[in-house]
């Protein structure tokens, strides 16, 4: 909502300067978003004197002028008929941007071969008048060289108010002025409706029937005959321009002017285009077509309220007029409409037709149901006055459903309690009265309040409390501290561990990414998910901004792979990213999806950023696995096994390079190398390794409590065993077998070496294990250890069909 300072002054005295005014409006709840000095561009236009004007040698209608700028004399080519020697003119210098030059700065140039170093302006070009006969002729007393802003002392500001939807009363300047008046302890001054001579009787010319009072509780109309459509006078154009509206013609301009003034949208019909000279307000037939003023054909529904004449619709009620009845150059009979429409109905229609106008904006928020007639009379008088038309006596006022004002009881005590204030009942009364509530004191604690018609936002006592707080000033409310109950507020497990895991991953060299929760629906294909995969059950968004944000993600992996591509493209080849976030498996569009939180990561490039002490080395499956292993171990998750994914289970990871992570009997997730085809799908050039864990399953594997063990007293003894096994024997199985031995003195085992190649037969590999033995109550003797070690080794060798080297 735009207002201008000078226009506001018509309705309320304003003594504050522009900064103070916008601050106090903001603090009263009308947030001033921008303040623009309207005539700033006149700072670059100066008062100048035409020393001489001679005919252009090559153009009859142009003059070549010597112009004194106060600093020097320059040559300017001018096309105005009234340019002459000695004239004081407005000169725009190169670089000036005028409102009429569409944002382009003026340039020096040559016009028909004569150089021109500026532009002598007309009033229209400067938007300070409508005189189109030629350049503006300034008072000769003005000082040459002064800026026009200074010379004419023009000053006005346009304020943009970010109005909240609860304050439609301020969608007219009078409403804004009312707020200003309340601050200044005065009251708003309504514009005068001129009492013009009128003749005849409107009822003889036109009739109005409301067939749907629920959608249109009130319809008023006035009639002006013999009107002459023309441009508006300057003052009217200036008012519209000051709030960002474009002047069109006098009749349309007046309807806009009064709408801006009162907040009441108006519509003018050409009565000659209304068949049977009547207005019928009724619902459209489903599927009817109608062409609105903007030349667009609209399909109507039975919920759309239409303004019709005796035969056909002529306007979409409260939304937009029709082409078939609009005011044209030859219009003489102006039927003016001012009505109150149901806000909900207007909103539905505007949404359905995807057609928002200044009128719908006001109607759907709620115009003053009691202001209908005032706006009608104000506009009718202006039309008669400015178009030279004749006002027909009387108005039509169909009002089948009368507006009932809101009446409320307000408790002083409750008000003070909720706000943290100590206002007296009189102070509360005074605040409410300052914005035109009718207030009486019912008893020592209770006020009886009647809300004015324009305050459609008030329906409960709390709405009045807000008024009191706002008018008293939020800054006057003392800062207090609630008495806090001494109840601890530890973060829940799910938050606590998420934070903890993130911190651990940082320590493991991983950086946190956050991706959008929506992705393109082609990602299921890019990940090569099978037809029956749950992750193909994507929840679609009805109104996505772009196609690649069309569905909710069912996997975190695509986002991370895109991050990898982005970073690789920016020369960051080494990358370790992780993300915590929800995936969404659809249960149908009409239900909430199943949201599951995932923890996923991608690593690619070198094991480290290139360093001098170590040769560059590419990450492998084992780097990804190492991160997961370390994480799970730090979380004290026990009984974790990593088993190879079968070919069928490998979707986007490569077979033979993919493992599932199992703790107890629960599958926690997977680790794997991204398949070549998937890599190509995501346009990745480097190998990538991912891990993908279900946070819920991970969390459920975390033990409730931590058990410690006493430190050993006696030294341990280690023994190695190296064996040659077939290549597809998994080290994990051998480790598991070792760990299964119920041998008291055997403490732990780890893989110490893997060797394939020279000296090892094709299809075989050499695996070495280091076993640790320890006794709780004595230092072990070699002999004893050797016996156990030999025994265990023998069983392993047999079990895995291994050979000794």
């Amino acid at each position, binding site marked *: 909502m735009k207002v201008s300072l000078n226009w506001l002054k018509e309705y309320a005295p304003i003594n504050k300067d522009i900064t103070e005014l916008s601050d106090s409006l903001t603090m009263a709840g009308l947030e001033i978003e*921008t303040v623009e000095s309207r005539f700033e561009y006149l700072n670059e236009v100066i008062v100048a004197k035409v020393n001489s004007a001679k005919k252009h040698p090559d153009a009859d209608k142009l003059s070549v002028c010597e112009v004194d700028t106060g600093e020097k004399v320059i040559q300017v080519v001018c096309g105005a008929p009234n340019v002459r020697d000695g004239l004081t003119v407005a000169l725009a210098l190169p670089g000036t941007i005028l409102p009429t030059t569409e944002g382009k700065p003026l340039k020096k140039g040559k016009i028909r071969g004569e150089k021109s170093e500026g532009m002598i302006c007309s009033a229209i070009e400067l938007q300070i008048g409508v005189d189109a006969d030629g350049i503006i002729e300034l008072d000769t007393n003005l000082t040459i060289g002064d800026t026009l802003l200074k010379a004419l002392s023009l000053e006005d500001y346009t304020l943009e108010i970010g109005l909240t939807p609860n304050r439609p009363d301020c969608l007219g300047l009078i409403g804004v002025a009312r707020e200003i008046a309340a601050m200044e302890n005065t009251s708003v001054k309504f514009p005068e409706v001129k009492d013009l001579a009128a003749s005849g009787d409107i009822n003889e010319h036109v009739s109005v029937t409301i067939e749907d009072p629920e959608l249109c509780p009130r319809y008023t109309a006035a009639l002006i005959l013999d009107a002459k459509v023309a441009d508006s006078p300057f003052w009217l154009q200036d008012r519209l321009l000051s709030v960002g509206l474009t002047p069109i013609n006098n009749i349309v301009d007046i309807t806009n002017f009064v709408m801006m003034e009162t907040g009441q949208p108006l519509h003018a019909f050409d009565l000659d285009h209304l068949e049977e000279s009547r207005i019928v307000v009724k619902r459209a037939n489903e599927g009817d077509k109608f062409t609105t003023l903007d030349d667009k054909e609209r399909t109507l529904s039975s919920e759309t309220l239409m303004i019709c004449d005796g035969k056909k619709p002529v306007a979409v009620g409260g939304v937009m007029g029709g082409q078939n009845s609009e005011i044209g150059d030859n219009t003489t009979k102006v039927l003016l409409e001012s009505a109150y429409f149901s806000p909900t109905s207007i*909103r539905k229609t505007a949404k359905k037709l995807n057609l928002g106008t200044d009128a719908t904006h006001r109607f759907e928020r709620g115009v003053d149901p009691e202001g209908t007639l005032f706006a009608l009379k104000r506009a009718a008088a202006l039309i008669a006055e400015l178009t030279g038309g004749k006002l027909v006596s009387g108005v039509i006022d169909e009002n089948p459903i009368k507006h009932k004002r809101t009446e409320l009881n307000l408790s002083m005590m409750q008000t003070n309690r*909720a706000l943290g204030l100590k206002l007296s009942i009189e102070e509360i009364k005074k605040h409410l009265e300052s914005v035109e509530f009718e207030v009486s004191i019912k008893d020592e604690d209770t006020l009886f309040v009647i809300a004015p018609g324009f305050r459609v936002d008030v329906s409960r006592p709390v709405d009045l409390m807000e008024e009191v707080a706002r008018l008293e000033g939020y800054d006057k409310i003392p800062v207090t501290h609630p008495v806090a109950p001494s109840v601890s507020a530890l973060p829940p497990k799910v938050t606590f561990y998420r934070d903890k895991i993130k911190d651990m991953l940082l320590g493991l060299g991983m*950086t946190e990414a956050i991706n959008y929760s929506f992705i393109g629906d082609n990602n299921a294909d890019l990940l090569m998910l099978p037809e029956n995969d749950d992750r193909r059950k994507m929840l679609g968004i009805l109104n996505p901004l772009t196609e690649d944000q069309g569905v909710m993600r069912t996997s975190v992996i695509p986002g991370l792979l895109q991050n990898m591509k982005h970073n690789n493209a920016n020369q960051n080849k080494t990358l370790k990213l992780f993300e915590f976030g929800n995936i969404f498996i659809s249960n149908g569009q009409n239900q909430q999806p199943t949201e599951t939180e995932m923890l996923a990561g991608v690593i690619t490039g070198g094991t480290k950023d290139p360093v001098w002490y170590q040769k560059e080395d590419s990450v492998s499956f084992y780097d990804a696995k190492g991160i997961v292993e370390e994480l799970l171990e730090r979380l004290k998750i026990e009984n974790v096994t990593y088993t190879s994914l079968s070919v069928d289970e490998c979707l986007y990871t490569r077979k033979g390079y993919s493992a599932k992570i199992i703790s107890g009997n629960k599958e926690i997730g997977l680790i794997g190398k991204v398949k070549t085809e998937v890599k190509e799908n995501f346009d990745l050039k480097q190998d990538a390794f991912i891990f993908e864990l279900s946070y819920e399953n991970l969390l459920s594997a975390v033990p409730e409590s931590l058990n410690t063990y006493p430190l050993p007293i006696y030294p341990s003894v280690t023994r190695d065993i190296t064996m040659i096994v077939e290549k597809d024997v998994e080290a994990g199985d051998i480790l598991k077998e070792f760990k299964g031995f119920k041998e008291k003195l055997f403490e732990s085992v780890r893989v110490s070496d893997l060797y394939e190649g020279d000296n090892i037969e094709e299809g075989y590999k050499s695996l070495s294990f280091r076993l640790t033995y320890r006794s709780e109550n004595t230092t072990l003797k070699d002999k004893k250890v050797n016996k156990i070690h030999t025994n265990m080794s023998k069983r392993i060798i047999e079990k895995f069909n291994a050979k000794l080297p």
Partner: protein
Amino acid sequence: MNKAIEDIQKESLEEIDNAKDLKELDSITVKYTGKKGFITSFSKNLSNLPSEERPAAGKKVNEVRTAFESALAEKIVSIKREIEEADTGIDVSLPGVRPAQGALHPVTIITREICSIFSSMGFNIAEGPEVETDYYNFEALNFPHNHPAREMQDTYYVSENILLRTHTSPMQARVMEKEKPPLKYIVPGKVYRCDSDITHTPMFHQVEGLMVDENISFGDLKGVLTSFIHQIFDEDTSLRFRPSFFPFTEPSAEVDIRCVICRGKGCRVCSQTGWLEILGSGMVHPGVFEYAGYDTEVITGFAFGMGVERIAMLKYGIDDIRKYYENDIRFLGQF
């Protein structure tokens, strides 16, 4: 024989004394106390001596061995000291061997900061679904159907009644539905609005707050939020509460802080106003309490919500919000 052992003693000590480096000492050690060393051989031969000579000879050998070993040890120390003194050291300007360390996303850092401030004030943390029903996102928060207030937020719809939550406020309704006052909750999480430009991303993060009890006043709201702002920015940050409108609070207040960039003088970031919008807040609307079945005569409360990215932008001077979701490590690595 005795004479021989004395010669060995003399020679060995001389050799130790003359040794130049550790390697030489090694061969001296082998020569005298190795398996076939002179002193070792002597010891071995003791058994060949007549029994009456053995004690004296044994004693002598031990003396020789002890003297040898202590001289050797002393010499090792002194050679090592010489080596250390002669050593010019390494190039300490070369970069160190650094264990890799990642970085947290700035949104996480700020969310944690916000949550820990409110946790210390006794607020509990709750989380809720990101795909919500119209009921929790709007209706139970006093947004009527077909009301322009719904336009304050550009909503992503999944179907008529299912949507991506536009704020973390649905958790207000969810918490109040389950629990009775007193309540103190904060709700961090992702929210969605279909809007994208230099200051808006279609997904962003909010932290919602809710405090409900008997006799909670607007003054309390001001108190809690003032101390929050002073913690998250600094004690010198001045703030103002200005009237605004949210369907689920009344009175509603927008909280502005003095622009942290220009300190109130007016700049591009604050659109020359000197103030920055940082939080939306207000007293819980009685209509919302009615949905929860609370007694609006007795129960009052306040709620607030803030954008995490916005606070991060101000704290870190980030000028393009879209940078948050490109996950460029050159960006992420800065936090």
